């Protein structure tokens, strides 16, 4: 491999995954619609009162984001595993962590970033104060990549199993809890006019930690799943 091999491989996998996502638009849009619909359910189920919704808003938006990420996770490796291209990718001389990182980035661009864009609208739905909007976006920007990264481990572990869906949520959701706790807490604190830098630093730390360790674990898990 030449010196440019690794960045080129990264970009090749990234563009390939983005192109695939573009060709299968409904798979991309459905988790996003799910996100919107789940959030809409809460005012109907709990109460349309502004005061109640305002206190629930950070939690509702974040739980919905978690579930919608879970819904789109399988796409990361499943179809590549089924048509055998995942095996070919792993056989290439490029380190598998780089490939995993590229696939995670593609997944985040397709499923995490749209959440970020649509979240302010849902914040308005749930009467979230305008002052908390920026924090909501910050937590989503720092938190959703962690969800994609950690989720990649879960998908890599279950991709070889025939019915991985329910198992995937059992494996991944407990690992998501720190992100959920700190993000929802930060948004709620911002709504009350409290400082949130501590929570944001913590989320940033989680992002760095998962960015450096999750690809290693996911790559090892993929090798086991394919064996």
């Amino acid at each position: 491999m030449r010196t440019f091999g690794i960045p080129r491989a990264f970009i090749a996998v990234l563009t390939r995954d983005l192109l695939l996502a573009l060709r299968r638009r409904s798979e991309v849009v459905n988790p996003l619609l799910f996100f919107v619909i789940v959030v809409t359910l809460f005012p109907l189920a709990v109460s349309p009162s502004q005061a109640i919704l305002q206190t629930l808003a950070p939690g509702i938006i974040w739980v919905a984001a978690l579930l919608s990420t879970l819904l789109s996770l399988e796409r990361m490796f499943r179809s590549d595993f089924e048509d055998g291209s995942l095996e070919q990718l792993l056989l290439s001389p490029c380190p598998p962590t780089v490939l995993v990182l590229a696939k995670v980035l593609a997944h985040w661009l397709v499923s995490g970033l749209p959440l970020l864009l649509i979240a302010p609208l849902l914040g308005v739905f749930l009467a979230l104060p305008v002052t908390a909007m920026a924090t909501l976006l910050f937590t989503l920007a720092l938190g959703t990549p962690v969800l994609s990264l950690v989720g990649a481990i879960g998908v890599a572990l279950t991709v070889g199993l025939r019915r991985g869906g329910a198992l995937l949520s059992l494996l991944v959701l407990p690992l998501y809890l720190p992100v959920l706790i700190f993000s929802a807490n930060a948004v709620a604190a911002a709504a009350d006019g409290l400082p949130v830098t501590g929570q944001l630093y913590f989320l940033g730390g989680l992002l760095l930690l998962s960015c450096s360790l999750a690809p290693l674990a996911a790559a090892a898990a993929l090798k086991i799943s394919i064996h």
Partner: protein
Amino acid sequence: MWYWFHRFASPAYFYRFAGKAIPWLATLTGLLLLAGLYGGLVLAPADYQQGDSYRIIFIHVPSAWMSLFIYVVMATAGGIGLIWHIKLAEVIAACSAPIGASFTFIALATGSLWGKPMWGTWWVWDARLTSELILLFLYFGVIALQSAGEDKRTASRASAILALVGVINIPIIHFSVEWWNTLHQGATVSKMGAPSIHTSMLVPLLIMALACKFYYATSLLMRARVELLEREHNSNWIREALKNHE
């Protein structure tokens, strides 16, 4: 040392060794349990604030310790199995998960029973309780992944990775008391200098902790023997061992 290590890690040797060790370990577990329970339930005085209901700590605290300890053992064994491909380590990791999950459950259940008279509620969303609950979920995840695959060795290796990932949760549990500092009382035993628990209560507590360790060892060896029989059912040493009624 490596010679000893390799010999011990061979399934055939381990199977025979475990068969001999189990009666001894079981007896020791029984004796320690009796001593600890007698010391805790009869000899130790009632607490001046909590009366007799504090006595649940003789079960609760050792179980909580074990829930963490077993997770670390499981992850370490899983890691060893992943790196050096030692079959026995995979078996140990696989057999530890259900025991650890039951200790976690006991810690949660007894804590909840104690919480009702003391805090006035069965359950509070306190950091420590929550992380213990998450630990239970992590155990469930490992167990589920282990039973999901058709090939036992692949499943073991996959769940080893999951256990190692979950290890990040262990320090969060341990330091959660300091981080979130909520309703649950801080650590009393490991405080440096003078522990804020009286010796008459501390001694039975430590005996109970030891009893739980030995219970784990006994039950682990029993489970590992069965698991080895299942995994290696068509190897020669099993046929010989069964012929000799070991």
